[in-house]
């Protein structure tokens, strides 16, 4: 079981906008994403919402499959900006590596 980190949203602010809470998990982004891969990027947005910091770090390699093509951001009905959240998570993971 992974732990939930309530300060994660605060930690992420340095790397990404705080639009993740806008997401209502409709799955449009995962359906339209050219990667067609295991509910990506919706799953990552959900991890952010619930503060599953360790889950993101465990699955971090997946973030770099993202092409930063922007199609998910363009079609998200809630303007949650999923593409930019993924980019923000990449920044968070890179900073984490470099600290370790």
């Amino acid at each position, binding site marked *: 079981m992974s732990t939930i980190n309530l300060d994660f949203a605060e930690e992420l602010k340095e790397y990404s906008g705080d639009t993740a809470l806008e997401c209502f998990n409709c799955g449009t982004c995962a359906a339209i994403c*050219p990667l067609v891969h295991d509910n990506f990027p919706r799953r990552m947005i959900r991890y952010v919402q619930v503060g599953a910091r360790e889950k993101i770090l465990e699955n971090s390699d997946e973030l770099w499959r993202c092409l930063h093509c*922007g199609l998910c951001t363009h079609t998200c009905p809630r303007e949650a900006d999923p593409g930019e959240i993924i980019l923000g998570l990449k920044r968070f993971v890179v900073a984490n590596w470099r600290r370790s």
Partner: protein
Amino acid sequence: MFNPRDIIETLANNVRQTTSPFGIPKFMVNKWHKDVNLPEEGEYMLITGLMYQFTPFIEKSTQYLEKYEGTKMASLLKYAKYMPGYLSGIGLAMMTSGKEKKNAGQALKDIAFLLKKSKVDFGYRPDLDNYSGILLYDMGDQKGFVAHAKKVAKKLKDAGVKKIITVDPHTAYAIKELFPKYTGISFEVKSYFELLDFESKDLGLEVTIHDPCFFGRYLKLSDIPRKVLGNLGITEFKIRNQGEFTSCCGGPAESISPSLSNEIMEKRVEELKEPGKPIIAYCPICLGNLKKSGAKVEDLSTILARHI
């Protein structure tokens, strides 16, 4: 899939040491301008950002990555960061054929020709034409990107540059949107096709257009190439995923996973080939990636230079 950390650290190291993500010295990459007589000054400064020039090297390095993806050799990549950037880059430069390097420069010669024909007042200075750092930004190396972008932007500002012409969507996005945000330095940025102005023609041709993500969605400029082509009587055969809803060519995944990149590219090529018309791209990454399928794809500048 390669370990993203190895790839990112190698690219970041190269940019830090050599200003090029592939570690190739600029004088070996940027040669196209030697055959073109361009003034050093003008209302606009032409900044290619070196993306067209990089494509043959990207292709060569992808061929190697493709060979090693999923093998034990893939894990050796982490040692690449201990190799001086120039050393690995010169090796890559030597493995890349002269013909491919020349072809990559042709699009830039065509663009310069199109701008001259449109009576645009522009200059070119190779010392100011640097890589924008966009790959570091896309990969999430924010610190590396900002440090590099600040140097590039300052050099332009110190030279008194105010108006810039870019030729590819990635450099355009970096200078237009990211530089003001992360370096505090702004320029007026135009993509070359926004400045073209030719006599109308009635060529009666039809083409399929592949819009790059950054021109179609991020910068919302995809209607302009259509107007330029339309003015010459070249119309577009519309496909489903175009303009703001364009599909990625797969190019950005090339260094992390060549197999994933190919999978996405092949799907896109199917859509583009369906109407049976010549395919036009207007980004060097898209062009290089789509061409790998064997499909006949041309750069916007090539078709324009042929017909005006």
